[in-house]
């Protein structure tokens, strides 16, 4: 069996070799959080990542960008990221410090964009995560562990092509490495 390692530390940019870094969850049990709520169109016309980060999710929770710490996990309901194709949506989340997005389902363009920029996203249909819970994610096996509640949840497995892109750290690095789709 092929083994796919996802050292979360590489996505979190942490100086640790641990595969299982625990981080804090921010839970918004809302369906259809669209890209206009993740980052409104009026802020997207920039290449400045920090400017995006300061407005992330502001129409949903004006305090979010102040609360979120580097490495935290965002948890949402169904169809997260529906709407526009703006890559600024996952970029804004990543720039704000979000290390993984957990949702019941994702809208397809957001899902692809997140993988392409190296932001892991994981579909978990059934879970009991609440804000403040300490969470670790094992992308290799598709398992989410809730340390606060001492529970584990099963996630949907990603297509191999996406795993390869994530393993490279995103599509830019994938193409720098391979020069073409392989």
């Amino acid at each position, binding site marked *: 069996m092929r083994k796919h390692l996802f050292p979360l530390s590489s996505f979190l940019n942490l100086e640790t070799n641990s595969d299982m870094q625990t981080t804090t969850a921010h839970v918004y049990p809302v369906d*259809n959080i*669209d890209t*206009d*709520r993740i980052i*409104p*169109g*009026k802020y*997207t*016309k*920039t*290449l400045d990542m920090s400017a995006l980060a300061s407005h992330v999710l502001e*129409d949903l929770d004006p305090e979010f960008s102040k609360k979120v710490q580097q490495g935290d996990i965002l948890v949402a309901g*169904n*169809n997260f990221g*529906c*709407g*526009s*194709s*703006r*890559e*600024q949506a996952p*970029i804004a989340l990543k720039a704000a410090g979000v290390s993984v997005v957990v949702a019941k*389902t994702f*809208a*397809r*363009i957001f899902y*692809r*964009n997140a993988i*392409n*920029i190296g932001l892991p996203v994981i579909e978990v249909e059934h879970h009991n995560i609440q804000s403040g819970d300490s969470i670790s994610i094992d992308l290799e096996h598709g398992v989410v562990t809730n340390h606060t509640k001492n529970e584990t949840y099963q996630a949907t497995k990603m*297509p*191999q*092509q996406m795993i390869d892109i994530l393993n490279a750290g*995103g*599509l*830019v690095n994938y*193409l*720098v490495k391979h020069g*073409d*789709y392989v």
Partner: protein
Amino acid sequence: MNQTISEKILSQHAGKPVKAGDIAIVRVDGVMATDATAPFAIKAFRQMGGKKLWDSERVSLIIDHASPAPNETVANLHKLMRDFSEEMGCRLYDIGEGICHQLVVENAHVKPGDLFLGADSHTPTYGALNAFGIGVGSTDLAATMLTGKTWLKVPKTIKITLNGELKKGVTAKDLILFLVKELGVEGANYQAVEFTGETIKGMTLASRMAIANMSSEMGAKAGLVDPTGLDLWYPFEPTFADNDAEYVRELTFDVSALRPQIAKPHSPENVVAIDEVLGTKVQYAFIGSCTNTRLEDLHAAAQVLKGKKLTSTRLIIAPASKKVFNDALKDGTIQILSDAGATFITSGCGPCVGSHLGVPGDGEVVISSTNRNFQGRMGNPKAQVYLGSPAVVAASALAGEIVEPE
């Protein structure tokens, strides 16, 4: 061969037969990015080590989302696009030329049977002309600019059959709003939709585009309209689904009794028959967007407003392209609308994306011919946006409240 339209087009581009669920690396016929997505795509292209485009003839950059530039930041992003197109020799549509999807179709950059990638979520619009259009983000687009390829999962397909003649005053927009309600905003997530049936087969290209366009509001990867009756100005080879094609879901509707439909705030699936919202006061009306501001839409508005005068409600119109504007100028439509008091703005996305002009005020109610009414979409989360057909928007602008056109 029991193939859907998606399976046929994608098999041709994979160079081998593929079926729903397969992961395939496919060649792409053309790409497009806008000022909302091209700057990031250019940045990613350079980071990938890109020195030249895979085929500069097949790349279009289009300035439409915040056009003309409202501030120096956007002005510099536009400049970045102009400089890049000059350096790489690719096509650039500058300010005022029109909305990306209109330009790509008008100038035949996408043709029936093509696989086209657009860095814009409404790229499924090209399903109107029997092409597989996929919306992607900037980095995916950059990768195709470099390689001429992308990877994808061949989608399962939902087949929607529409029968019956639409009543007078009921349009393709009403039909697609109704279907978004029926399927929901994630009803076709990761899937393709095929639209067929007698109702569709008699439709104009513009009406087909309105339907395919809003298939993205169901989360669809592509919205493919049956090419029977498709009338284009150049010869083409249509791609039909096989009679024994396999679908994940099949839905049939008789739409002969359909009433005009309205999406209420703040979701395009929050759709009701117009009867439920008649009398809702509106301060601002907008006819625009890649969904509904083509010539037939302007004609519908002019029919309502001919010889009339707007009083309390402001009406903004952004024609889909310079060509649409010029055609409407020549046939007198612009004069009728202008005499009625409508304000014309640059052909482009305009108020639909809330990036620059035409932002509604706090608590204001908007009736709009666009495709999305997410909270904050038009630039103000405190505004209420209702979606309807161009005729309903024009009639409501005249009445100052949501009404049905006579």
